[in-house]
């Protein structure tokens, strides 16, 4: 995996069909709030430990066909681009704004009662296992920044890396569009 989780344009059409899905270029914080606030009544429960296990077992084989992963598509979410230093967990300064914008949204009264899952994705450049590990560490880095720098309660944040196993552009797994961060509303904090 190279430098970033990146947002592309090619995948938007497909994912916009998901409920409460938004395309994040030129995104503003009120838009983020509106997008993530649409919680469907029958939102499925997500078992994050199980997702992690399945991703680890599927390195190089993909998770898109797994029912547990498909459940995520049914939840309100948005895709953002957050760039990192090459092969590192350091968020590039140019992406600080995006992290800050997510923090603005998560502190809004409309979203304050919800918990969120940060899913890190890579392209298929590089070793699948390495991509899986790096994407987990990067997803952790994002939730850490949110919970420390921006004081979002840590019990509202979950992180998972899925590496290259869930490309948004399966026909071109190496495409930069596949590098991205998914922010998913997991429902009420218990």
């Amino acid at each position: 995996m190279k430098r970033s989780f990146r947002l592309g344009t090619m995948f938007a059409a497909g994912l916009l069909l998901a409920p409460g899905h938004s395309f994040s270029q030129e995104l503003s914080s009120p838009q983020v709030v509106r997008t993530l606030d649409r919680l469907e009544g029958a939102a499925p429960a997500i078992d994050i430990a199980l997702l992690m296990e399945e991703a680890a077992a599927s390195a190089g084989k993909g998770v898109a066909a797994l029912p547990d992963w498909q459940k995520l598509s049914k939840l309100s979410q948005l895709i953002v681009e957050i760039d990192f230093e090459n092969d590192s967990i350091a968020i590039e300064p140019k992406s600080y704004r995006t992290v800050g914008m997510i923090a603005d949204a998560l502190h809004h009264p409309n979203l304050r009662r919800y918990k969120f899952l940060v899913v890190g994705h890579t392209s298929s450049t590089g070793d699948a296992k390495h991509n899986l590990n790096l994407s987990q560490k990067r997803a952790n880095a994002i939730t850490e920044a949110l919970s420390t720098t921006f004081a979002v309660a840590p019990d509202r944040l979950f992180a998972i890396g899925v590496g290259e196993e869930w490309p948004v552009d399966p026909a071109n797994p190496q495409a930069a569009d596949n590098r991205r961060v998914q922010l998913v509303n997991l429902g009420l904090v218990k």
Partner: protein
Amino acid sequence: MSTRTRLVIGGVLVAFLAMTGAARADTISFADAVSTLATDCGTDIKKFCKGLNLGNGRIQNCLEEHAGKVSPTCTATLSSVSASIKQRLAAQSSFTAICRHDVAQFCSGVKGEGNVLSCLNKAKRVKEGQCGQAITDAGWR
């Protein structure tokens, strides 16, 4: 009055004005706060803090450790950024207490914090009062 006394009084006055000014000044969003950090400190961060992340004060600590080499603009920005973030957080956490009275008066029976907020935002008399200012400072208008 000695020069020294005058200086002290002057200093206190400046500090007082700075404080009241800060209390009245509009707060800024987290996104704007860290955008300033990226703009003014991005080069220094990439030069001195390679591999370090925003979380847990690492970037701030790193820039402070390299205080001698970091650009003056960045040094100035660094303290204002953490102040901005704290101000916004404080404004957000004081919302419930400051707006309690207005909630009871204008939005009683409204369930859910988000719904209460949009109810308050619709009430004209809230906007002009303390609660309205609290909502503005929290960035929830």
